[in-house]
């Protein structure tokens, strides 16, 4: 739908919303933009927004591609719980960091493979297929931790959550790295084109020779990997695994971040960076409401109101009503061709 807007103006609603939310935070809390260096690590509200937003941003990266294929992955929160549970339990049992990381990430890949096979091979609707793991995954995580909150002492693993690299908090570094890696993978190969093509029209893509099952499996596997990284960060941050609450409801935040970022649930064109911006908007709002001293009860309502505004700003129906910006054409809903009924 971005056809008539050039690349720079197309993402205006997202950047605008991010700036507006940050400015609102600044008004509420004048120290919002101050950043200081302490013990070789950056501190400040803005850094905090990025740090806290990292798990959802990671989920959103994987979710973007799933949604681009006209799917959705509800199980990412549960996958976070599984990867976190495996990391914490193995660390407690004395395994080394590399084995822990490998096992934890592998669990994410495996979960993604499961989802991908259900969707691509067994052709179950994505929302149902991933609902299975959303429910079962938390059970698996509880089995791994044997129903306990597993805590561990491992400075190496904890560093993933609370450490820093060149003064930047580790979760932010990992998110940027994943974003770069994913962008490289889809934009330097033909994967991006095929993901969009499958999302727009799976049948046409298959008839053109695109290996649609493999593309679908790949996006779910990558989404699982992103979720596993997010699970590691959360576990490392709290130095423990809580199978009941790790990543709880974060799949919904991730979907929201993707949609706020402008990728349509109807599949097709996707923007990885914009999804991360969407996650940043969500987190900036959360932080702002906490800082403002409003009752936490307001949190959800304010969030909903802001999101509504962002989504309305992207809505094709609204853009045709509003006076158009100079040079830009209103985005028209695609004209529906007269349907010739086959007798």
């Amino acid at each position, binding site marked *: 739908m971005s056809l008539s807007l050039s690349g720079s103006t197309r993402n205006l609603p997202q950047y605008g919303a991010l700036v507006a939310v940050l400015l609102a935070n600044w008004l509420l809390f004048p120290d919002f933009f101050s950043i200081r260096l302490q013990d070789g690590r950056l501190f400040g509200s803005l850094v905090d927004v990025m740090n806290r937003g990292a798990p959802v941003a990671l989920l959103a990266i994987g979710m973007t591609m799933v949604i681009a294929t006209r799917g959705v992955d509800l199980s990412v929160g549960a996958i976070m719980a599984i990867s976190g549970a495996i990391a914490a339990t193995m660390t407690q049992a004395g395994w080394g960091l590399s084995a822990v990381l490998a096992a934890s990430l592998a669990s994410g890949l495996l979960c993604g493979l499961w989802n991908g096979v259900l969707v691509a091979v067994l052709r179950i609707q994505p929302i149902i297929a991933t609902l299975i793991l959303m429910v079962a995954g938390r059970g698996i995580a509880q089995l791994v931790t044997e129903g306990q909150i597993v805590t561990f002492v491992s400075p190496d693993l904890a560093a993933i959550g609370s450490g820093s690299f060149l003064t930047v908090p580790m979760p932010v570094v990992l998110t940027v790295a994943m974003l770069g890696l994913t962008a490289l993978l889809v934009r330097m190969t*033909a994967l991006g084109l095929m993901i969009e*093509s499958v999302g727009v029209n799976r049948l046409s893509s298959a008839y053109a*020779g695109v290996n649609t099952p493999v593309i679908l499996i790949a996006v779910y596997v990558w989404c699982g990997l992103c979720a596993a990284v997010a699970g590691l960060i959360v576990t490392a941050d709290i130095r423990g695994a809580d199978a009941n609450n790790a990543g709880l409801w974060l799949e919904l935040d991730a979907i929201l971040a993707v949609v706020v970022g402008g990728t349509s649930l109807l599949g*097709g064109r996707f923007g990885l960076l914009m999804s991360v911006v969407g996650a940043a908007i969500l987190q900036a709002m959360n932080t702002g409401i906490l800082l403002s001293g409003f009752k936490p009860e307001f949190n959800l309502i304010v969030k909903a109101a802001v999101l509504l505004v962002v989504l309305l700003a992207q809505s094709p129906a609204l853009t045709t009503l509003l006076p158009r910006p100079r040079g830009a054409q209103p985005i028209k809903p695609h004209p529906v061709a007269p349907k010739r009924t086959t*007798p």
Partner: protein
Amino acid sequence: MTHPHAPPLLAIRGLSKAFLGVQALDGVDFTLRHGEVHALLGENGAGKSTLIKTLTGVYQRDGGTIALCGEEIAPRSVEDAQRLNIGTVYQEVNLLPNLSVAENLFLGRQPMRFGLVDRAAMRRRARVILDGYGLSIDVAAPLQRFSVATQQIVAIARAVDMSAKVLILDEPTASLDAQEVAVLFDVMRGLKARGIGIVFVTHFLDQVYAVCDRITVLRNGRLVGERRAADLPRLDLVAMMLGRELEAASHRLAQPEEIDDSRPPLVRFQGFGKTRSVAPFDLDIRPGEVVGLAGLLGSGRTETARLAFGVDRADSGSVTVDGEKTQLRGPREAVRLGFGYCPEDRKKEGIVGALSVRENIILALQARQGWLKPIPRRRQQEIADRFIRLLDIRTPDAERPIQLLSGGNQQKALLARWLATEPRFLILDEPTRGIDVGAHAEIIRLIERLCADGMALLVVSSELEEIVAYSRRVIVLRDRHHVDVLRGEDVSVERIVASIASESPPSPVPPSPVAEVRP
């Protein structure tokens, strides 16, 4: 059976209906008398569906009148039509398979007793109704336990019991086998004797002559004519449906060059077929040869094309490409073999709407190369620009989403998609459907050029002149069988029409009509 001056059961006069500027019905007349079976025939886009849907209240007409027993009516909804005694049974049974037969018969009008459904009375009455159709089944059993034919009869019984004057049967036989068709016809004759008027829509000409009294033919939203079935030879009927004046001479635009038949074929299908789709057929295609597939709607043309590209997997026979036996497991395999396929339904199966013209053009080539070897952006641009120039695709630039192009330009972009892969064998299903006259001629010229370049083509088209113009050989299909091959001098519109219209040879097992595969 009625007074000669009594008004007919149903009289439609000057019916018109347009959809967003497309005239689906243009001043159509249709008359249904008491106690007759009236076939409503026509090819794709003829307006049969629109007529039926206007009659049953799904669509509201733009102009014209509908009179039932002399009284003008204007059904606003399906329920409204039912109240007016117009009942409809569709190809797919519109009942609830998990409910019992009796419940299906009385759904929405169950006999009540003390405010509760009187199940015993319902079953009793259901038994009586179905006995009238010679159907003695357990009416308490769920409907899904019975064959499609039985379900079809239950649907008819329900429609007749609710509204007993006009019954519309929209392709009821499409998923029935020969015996079931015979049972259905008995039911229809019984209803006819009760004075009910039946509108019968079907693609099977044999069935038309087996059961119908009158035939009305539509074409492109206009009435072609109404005839008594007994007075209308098959040949004339087919000519009416296809819109050909048989006297009119047709000539081939370009005589394809002589091709040595002894040369090995590029692609050879042997005993290739799929049950419930197309009966096994043999087909050889040589480089530089265009083979046309002709037949009425539902005769198996599209099914043949889909089998040849591996979209549907054949369950019998073999494929040989360049003398080597090979498997055709799916489109990907076909693309690897150097096949290409432009499907009939461009929108659903061809274009990737929201992607750009450039991306649509390079898609098949990229898919064949695999995702690891992306075509560099500059090269993509070159390929797209080359074909936009070569095929004269009218678009401001290659980055425009293909869905914004006109049908003809979309079709050319799809051809470009395959030409970019330098295919050896190209399958085109209705390449000129829904395309304006200018683009139409260009695509035909393009087909001739491709053939001259040594490509093998298999073209499905309902435009017979078109097929005759470029085909070296024409395969005629009827009732999902390849029934005739015309070559050389025999490739003419008249011969094709005659071949389509010829009677099926008498055989102990009539060709079984199978489920219509709709794209």
